[in-house]
């Protein structure tokens, strides 16, 4: 059996018609160990959400495979495999927008009891009530009696997102895909939500695929885990969080880290910039040759970077980078 609980193997996802086709995700592979946190970080349009949806089983890959505990979830010809339903119970997703992801005409009780009843995890309404009460306790929504009869519009953004987390927990998932789960929540509430997610990991060993555009949040949540940086549909760097934050190797990661404003006036005004050659993100309909980052990359070498597309290469210490120059330099040292 593989060392990973969840494994994405060469995931490809294309969208569009025959005439206009974009490849949103182009050959993404990674594994997540049981109880581990892996963060997917990247700018909008890099394919991180699409990857997350494929891992959660909500979107069928055009090519490639997702496996859980060594078992592939997509069977022959892309049909849902035998274990698909149980997979969907083991893997839950928390969506970004708590204003769009909860049914406005259902009460909190109905939202949380529906999956319990549907999957026959409880035998009666009374049992469902007990479970809902304990779930609301887990996500820190109280007094419980007050919340179960409320509708989403009566809740604040932070409270809604707590309900989303509670809903993901109804089926006791082993894996949670959190897609920008705290991005729309106010600063003061964000940390308590992240702490709830961290506690789930500590208490129940929940495994996370945490998707965010915010590297500071990724650093905080995945300090003991790993971060994968995506750029136009591919992973360009994959390393443990402290490695990636303190010693980034891919020029794109370097650019991102140096560009982020920090909530510390001295630190942020003194930061060394890693300047790019161009600010323009290439169109998915007209991708550059060779390395997709080469038109913007200050390390660009003609005849190499514009010709050959770099693979995600191991460079020692369990880290990977998709850059000719970075891989060469790592080989030298």
């Amino acid at each position, binding site marked *: 059996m593989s060392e990973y609980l969840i494994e994405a193997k060469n995931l490809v996802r294309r969208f569009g018609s025959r005439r206009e086709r974009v490849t949103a995700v182009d050959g993404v592979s990674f594994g997540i160990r049981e109880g581990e946190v892996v963060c997917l970080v990247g700018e909008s349009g890099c394919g991180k959400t699409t990857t997350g949806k494929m891992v959660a089983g909500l979107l069928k890959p055009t090519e490639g495979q997702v496996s859980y505990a060594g078992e592939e979830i997509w069977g022959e010809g892309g049909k849902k495999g035998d274990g698909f339903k149980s997979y969907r119970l083991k893997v839950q997703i928390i969506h970004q927008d708590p204003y769009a992801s909860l049914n406005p005409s259902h009460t909190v009780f109905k939202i949380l009891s529906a999956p319990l009843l549907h999957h026959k995890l409880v035998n009666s309404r009374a049992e469902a009530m007990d479970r809902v009460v304990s779930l609301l306790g887990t996500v820190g929504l109280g007094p419980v009696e007050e919340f179960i009869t409320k509708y989403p519009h009566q809740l604040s953004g932070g409270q809604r997102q707590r309900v989303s987390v509670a809903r993901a927990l109804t089926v006791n998932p082993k894996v949670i895909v959190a897609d920008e789960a705290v991005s729309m929540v106010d600063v003061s509430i964000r*940390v308590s939500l992240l702490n709830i997610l961290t506690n789930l990991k500590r208490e129940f060993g929940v495994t996370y695929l945490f998707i965010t555009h915010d590297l500071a949040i990724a650093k905080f949540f995945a300090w003991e885990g790993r971060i994968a940086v995506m750029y136009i549909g591919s992973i360009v760097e994959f390393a443990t969080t402290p490695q990636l934050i303190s010693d980034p190797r891919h020029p794109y990661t370097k650019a*991102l880290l140096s560009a982020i404003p920090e909530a*510390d006036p001295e630190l942020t005004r003194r930061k060394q910039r890693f300047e790019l050659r161009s600010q323009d993100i290439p169109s998915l309909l007209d991708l550059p040759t060779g390395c997709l980052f080469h038109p913007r990359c200050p390390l660009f070498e003609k005849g190499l970077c514009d010709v050959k597309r770099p693979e995600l290469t191991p460079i020692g210490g369990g880290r990977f980078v998709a850059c000719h120059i970075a891989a060469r330099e790592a080989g030298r040292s």
Partner: protein
Amino acid sequence: MQTMNSTSQQNQTPPLSIRNLWVEYSVERGLVKAVRGINLDLRPEESLALIGESGCGKTTLALSLIRLLVKAATITQGTITYRRDGQELDILSLNSRELRRFRWRECAMVFQSALNAFNPVLRIRDQIYDTARAHGVTSREETHQRALELLEHVQLDPKRVINAYPHELSGGMRQRVLLAMSLLLDPQVLILDEPTTALDILTQRTIIDLLRRLKAELGFSMMFISHDLATAAELADRVATMYAGNIVELGSVADIFYHPTHPYTLGLIRAVPTVTGDFEELASIPGSPPDLIDPPSGCKFHPRCTYATERCRVEEPKLEPVLGIGHTVACFHHDLVEQDTESLAKNHSHTTRKNTL
């Protein structure tokens, strides 16, 4: 009107003064007291950040300054005074014609959503021309020249962009066009609502650098709203923390970030991680923001505050000076908060030193 010499303005009176401003929204459930007695000066050529979470009244305050509030909102009390060249304008008593002259020429606003700010069926040049004409500039040729100049200024290819439709531009480009348009009539004051929210990291960086450069070159005063502390740390000279419709702390950017004396400011800072450096423990602020229809008694922050005492439940603190130049805070227990932030300041000078080695 020509751009004024930047140095001559330093010691002048503030271009905008807000005194005891109250704004209410009338909704089904009652009256939302969105802005409750704000006093604030915008100084010449400064960059002032309003920070605070959603619903704290920061956008309402900004919209009041150019009288763009929705119909359900009423300014119930207060004055807003605008000054330029020794003349004073009472903003709240302007009629619609005078308002039209005031907006954009004197005080321009850049709104949060860069896509929604454009008419999708007009080319950029027509949007710019419409704007100029609405505010009294009739020469098409003059507007065109000025537009090309400004687009160049915001690092866009003027010839291409001026003929483009909004959908042909990326989010960052649209934000830059909006910036260029806001500067079209050479305003003295620029108000920006979340100028970098919803932009990608690298685009955000371009906009921040651009704003800093434009301000240095053109010498306008800038007030910007941000829920993102990092943008404030980066761009502001002074920071005002807002909570429940009022300013609870105001000070230089260094005082606010390294010596916060309001428990809410401290709470915000402790809740935000930095990317550089080692792992830091973060703390969240308990509870949730208050209901502004039926706000708590006394200090509006007391239900969430660890320093709260009986006095806080009864009496609402007013802004009063503390250590630091122009640093004011509305908290009875700012001494205690200050003691606790000593450690914050120490930690920070420690980490910043380490990071620059």
